[in-house]
C-alpha cells in the first residue's frame, strides 16, 4: 500500500494505492490520523487505486470520520472500485460514509 497526499482547494486528498489489510492498517491509521490531528478538516480518501480493504482498514476510515465529525470536519470517500463498493454495500458502510463517484464531485459539493 502506498499513500499519496495532495492538498487541493482546502481539501486534503489521500490517494490509497494497493491493498489495505490488517498488516498495514496500523501504518495507514498513523498517517491518516496524523492529518486529522494536525487540523486538516476536509479529507477526501481517493479509493480509485484501492484494490482491497480489510475490516481493519475500514476501522481506520470510521476512526477518521468520527474524529473529523467531532471537530466539525468532513470525510469523503470517492471513486470506489466495484468490488470495494460491494463490500461497503454488504456491510452497510454506504450508510455511514459520504461516497462520491468522482474526485471532482467530492471537491465541488
Amino acid at each position: 500500500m502506498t499513500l499519496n497526499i495532495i492538498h487541493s482547494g482546502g481539501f486534503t486528498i489521500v490517494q490509497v494505492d494497493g491493498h489495505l489489510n490488517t498488516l498495514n492498517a496500523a501504518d495507514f491509521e498513523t498517517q491518516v490520523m496524523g492529518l486529522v490531528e494536525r487540523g486538516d478538516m476536509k479529507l477526501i480518501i481517493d479509493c480509485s487505486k484501492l484494490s482491497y480493504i480489510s475490516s481493519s482498514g475500514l476501522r481506520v476510515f470510521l476512526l477518521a470520520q468520527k474524529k473529523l465529525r467531532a471537530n466539525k470536519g468532513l470525510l469523503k470517500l470517492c471513486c470506489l472500485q466495484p468490488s470495494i463498493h460491494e463490500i461497503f454495500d454488504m456491510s452497510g458502510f454506504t450508510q455511514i460514509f459520504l461516497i462520491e463517484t468522482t474526485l471532482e464531485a467530492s471537491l465541488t459539493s
Partner: protein
Amino acid sequence: MNFKNIINTESLSFRILTRVLLITVSLFVLTLSIYYIYTRNLIREAARENAIQLAGNIAGKIAQQLQPMEKLPQMVSATIEMGLFDKDSLIVVLETILKRNPNIYGASIAFAPNIFPEKGLYFMPYAYRNNNEIISTFLGSADYEYFLMDWFQIPFMTKKPYWSEPYFDEGGGNALMTTYSVPFYYHTEQGRVQGGIATIDVDLQWLTDIVSEVTIFETGYAFVLSRNGMAITHPDRSMIMNESIFSNSENWEEPLLREIGRDLQQGNSSFSEYNLKNKVKRWIYYTPLDAGGLSLAVVYPDDEMFASLHKMNLILLALIIFGLILLNFTVVKIVNRLARPLVDIAKTAHKIAEGNFNAPLPEVKSRDEIRLLRNAFVNMQQELGAYVANLTATTAAKEKIESELRIARDIQLSMIPHSFPPFPELPQIDLFAELKSAKEVGGDLYDFFLIDKHQFCFAIGDVSGKGVPASLFMAVTRTLLRSIADKVKSPSGIMKLLNNSLAMNNESCMFVTFFLGVLDISTGELSYVNAGHNPPVIIPGDGAVKFLPLANGIPLGLQENYEYPQFSLSFKDGDKFFAYTDGVSEAENSQHQLFGEQAILDVLMQHKSDHPIALIKAMDAAISQHVSGFDQSDDITMLSIAFNHGSANGTPRNKP
C-alpha cells in the same frame, strides 16, 4: 563436515599431489619416450653404418682372395681351346697351378664324354694336395661319372662359369670346399664342340677364419651364405651346411627371414630385423660377395645393440622416481604448512557452530588469502555473536506475544459452543458449526442457544481487525448477546441493544459484522437481522441455493440507536441454512485468488442433501483444495442448520 575427512583422504595436499604427479609423470613419460625413440633411431642408424662398413671390409678381404682364383680356370680353358697343350701334358699344367697357389686345394680339366675316343668315356686329369704333396691322378669311372656332377653339369649346360654350392670334401680331410668351374670349347674332327670343364677346388678354411674373427658386441657375428641360402660359416657349427636362411625361416616361424634370403638372392643389400624362434630380436645387414656365389651377413643382437640405451633408460628412470619422491615430500610439506591455519580455522568454525562465539582464531602471519579468510572469520564471529544475542532477545519477546495470542485463541474458542449435536433432544434441528482460527487470531464468533422452548437463537459474526483486541471484542459481543437475549426476544430488538452496548464509548471504532436469527422450531418461521455480515445461504430441500434476502444494516458498534430491519422466512421441512465469515469467501491461494461466493454456492449446491457436518467438511475440503497449502490468513467460521420440522411428528426427514 567431518574433520577427519579434511585432513585425510581428500586433503589439499593429496589433491594437489595427485594433480602435480599426474602432470609431472605425463611429462616425464613423454620426454622419456621421445628421448628413447630418437636415441634408438640414432643407434640403429649408427649400427647400420657400422654394419655396412664392416661387411664391406670382410667382403673386400674375401673378394681379394677369390677373384684372382677365378682367373686360373678361365686361363686354362682359354689355353685348351687354343690347343696350346697336348692332352697328356695337362696334368703338369694343373700341378703348376697348385704349386703357385697355396689356397687352391685341387684343379682339374674334365673333358666331356668321348672327346678322346682312345681315352674312353672319361678323361679328367686331376691334381690335388695331400698333406704337403701334390698328387696327380685321372678320375672318371662308372663309380664316378663326373659329368653328372653339379660342378660339371651346370657350367656345361649353362655354358657359364659356375661357383658350386660349397661341400665337405671327404678326400680333402673333410674340409669345406667350393669348386669354380669354367666351360671350355675344343676343336675336334667334328669342329668346335663343348670340350669340358676346367676347375679349381678352393679350400674355404681361410674364409671361415676371416669371418669367424668378426665379433659384434657380445654375441653378434658374421656369417656367409651360399647361393641357396645355406650357412657356409656360422658360429653355431651345427648350422653349417645343414640349415639355410630359408629352413631357419621355417624353424623359427619367421617369414621375414625368407624375405631377406630372397632379397639376398636378387643381389640386394639391406639392413633389417628379424626374430629368432624365442622372439629374440636380431638386426642383420646382408650383402652379396663379388665372387663364389656367396653372400655375407652381419648380425647385431637387438638387446646388445641397445644395451647402452636401456642402461641409460634405467638410470633416467631411477632419477625420475627419486625426483618424484622428492617432489612428493616437498609438495606435501608445503601444502600442509599452508593448510595448517585452514585446519585451525575449521576447528574454530566448529566451535563457533557449537555456540562458542569467543573461540580464539589462530594467528596468521602471512599476508595471503588465508589471512583474508581468517579476518573474514573474525568479522563473521563478531557479527554472529551480536546477531545471536539480538535474536535471543527478539525470540523471547516473540514467544511472549505468541503465547498471548495462543491464550486469546483459547479464550475465543472456549467462548463458543462446540459440542455437537448441541440439542439431541430436539430432532427438528441438526446443527454443525466450525471455527478455524488463523495463526494470528481473528475475531470470528458464532453462537446458538434456546431462548425458550420454541425459539432457537443463533448468530455468526466477525470482529474488525485481528489479534488480542479482536478476540476481546468478540468475547464482549458474545457475552452481551447472551445477556440481552435473556430479556429481549425479537432479533431486531436484540440487535439494537447489542449495537448500543457495543457502540457506547467505542473510541477505537472496533466493530463487528453480525448476523442474528431466531427460528421457531415449532413452525419453521425464521426471523433474522443482519449487521453488515456476509449474507448467509438458504438451501431449500427442493430448488437452487440462494443468498438469504436481506437489507444490510451497518456493523455493530458504530452508531448508537441504529434501527436494524428485521426479515422473516418460513423454513420448510428439509431446508438448510449456511452462514460463514469472510475467511471462507476470501480464502486465498498462492496466486492471491479468492475462494469466492460463487464457489460457496457451487459446493452447497453439490452437497445440498448432505448433513450439516458433511456439508461443512465438504466446504473445508473445497477450501483446502483451493488454497492448496497456502497459509490461512483469517479465521474461517461456518455454521449450518438443517430444519426437520416433520421429525417432531415422527415423519421422515426427506419428505418429497
